[in-house]
């Protein structure tokens, strides 16, 4: 969901558990709604199930207070009162970082107990003016930091738990741990290497490095969250012949003019576009590992596939996928990955019906394209948080 035409807010996180644990005591949640994006990172201290439950409760409390626009102090106070104990490390017995990103680009940050986050702009560390708020508790005052800044395209926010900061501790190479400066310069190097590195790749790289620092046996849970304000990645998906042949030209025009990735799903559709734009199609006569019809190529188009069979398999894949990466090598996997790599997905659906497709004697049932795409669009929007548009032609 793009919250602003200016940029798309990509949020990703990645975590590793302390060696020997099966769940992490760090929890990151992301919530989008009302034109805002919320990101919460909480560390339940310690590892394992207990810590995980604690962190889940904290992050959900933090989210709901923020959603209700409650003053930060109140939220912080309640959480601290509930979870912070008098132990020596009391500051650290329940931590949270809240990012509240508004549609106009204003980001409000609340931090308690976690390592302070970075904002990277033009590949340097943007200094944040952090205001300290004192929260009085029965164990004495606790300090919460609040700050805000206005994000612009290409900014990144890097959040991490203390396991990342401390990674490498007591090793020969990093006797004092990786540290803030280490993490910052690592991120900056990564950006130099790839100016448009996605949040998805960045958080994985940070964690991979932290794991390496700990010589592949993490001494603590480690989590990294990355927010990347970037130009939205757009993909056009054309499927189906226009209802009226006079519109063929318009369809071809949409494809020719589009600035973004282009995908055509449909034999007849691609023939129409090929004819109108006078560009040849080459079918790659190869067996597909998913048993789907072969793909084709055309100048200026990223991928051409068959229509309804392929799309219904893509839908199935996306329905069944729960949070993991899609690894299928067939055309369905390829298309699904392609869709997920984009933020804005624009379908152009031709509504001409091929009557023979509805012949009950066909060996397989061919779903109606329109319904199929509607379902697929809903799935992409609701589960995968994409901005989806459908245009019928």
């Amino acid at each position, binding site marked *: 969901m793009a919250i602003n035409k200016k940029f798309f807010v990509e949020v990703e996180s990645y975590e590793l558990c302390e060696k020997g644990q099966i769940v992490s005591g760090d929890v990151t949640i992301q919530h989008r709604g009302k034109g805002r994006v919320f990101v919460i990172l909480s560390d339940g201290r310690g590892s394992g199930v207990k810590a995980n439950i604690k962190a889940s409760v904290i992050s959900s409390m933090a989210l709901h207070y923020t959603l209700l626009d409650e003053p930060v102090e109140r939220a912080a106070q309640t959480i601290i009162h509930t979870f912070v104990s008098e132990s020596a490390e009391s500051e650290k017995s329940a931590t949270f970082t809240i990012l509240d990103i508004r549609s106009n680009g204003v980001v409000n940050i609340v931090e308690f107990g976690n390592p302070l986050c970075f904002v990277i702009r033009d590949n340097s560390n943007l200094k944040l003016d952090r205001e300290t708020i004192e929260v009085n508790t029965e164990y004495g005052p606790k300090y919460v930091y609040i700050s805000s800044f206005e994000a612009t395209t290409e900014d990144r926010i890097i959040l991490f738990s203390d396991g990342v900061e401390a990674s490498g501790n007591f090793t020969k190479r990093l006797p004092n741990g990786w540290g803030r400066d280490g993490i910052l310069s690592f991120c900056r190097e990564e950006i130099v290497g790839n100016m448009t590195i996605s949040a998805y790749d960045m958080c994985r790289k940070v964690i991979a490095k932290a794991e390496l620092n700990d010589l592949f046996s993490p001494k603590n849970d480690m989590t990294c969250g990355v927010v990347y304000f970037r130009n939205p990645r757009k993909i056009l998906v054309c499927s189906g012949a226009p209802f009226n042949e006079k519109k063929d030209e318009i369809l071809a025009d949409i494809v020719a003019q589009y600035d973004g990735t282009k995908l055509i799903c449909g034999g*007849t559709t*691609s023939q129409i576009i090929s004819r109108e734009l006078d560009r040849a*199609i080459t*079918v790659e*006569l190869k*067996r597909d590992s998913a048993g789907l019809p072969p793909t084709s190529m055309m100048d200026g188009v990223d991928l*051409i596939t068959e229509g309804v069979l392929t799309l219904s398999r893509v839908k199935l894949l996306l329905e069944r996928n729960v949070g993991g990466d899609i690894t299928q090598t067939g055309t369905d996997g390829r298309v699904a990955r392609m869709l997920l790599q984009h933020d804005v997905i624009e379908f152009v659906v031709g509504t001409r019906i091929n009557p*023979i497709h509805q012949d009950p004697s*066909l*060996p397989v049932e061919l779903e109606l394209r329109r319904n199929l795409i509607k379902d697929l669009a809903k799935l992409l929007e609701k589960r995968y948080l994409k901005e989806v548009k459908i245009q019928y032609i």
Partner: protein
Amino acid sequence: MSKKLSVTICTGTLCYVMGGAELQVLEEYLSPEIVDQIEISGSPCLDCCNQDGAGKAPFVKIGDKIISEASISKVVDAIKEELNVE
């Protein structure tokens, strides 16, 4: 051999579900001499599936001729006939 005989297999939805999927391995059923004389390619849709009277899917185009209800053996025969070989 001057010009190769073109053999175009339809890989569109209808042809595919009606048995066209098998036709992709056509080449394996032909002798090397024949393979030498033809050029196999695919088409996203030969545009026969929405025309009355074109016959039934799957379709294959050999030269200018459309073969309907194509099966491997039917296509192999038609290619041999076009090329005048046994």
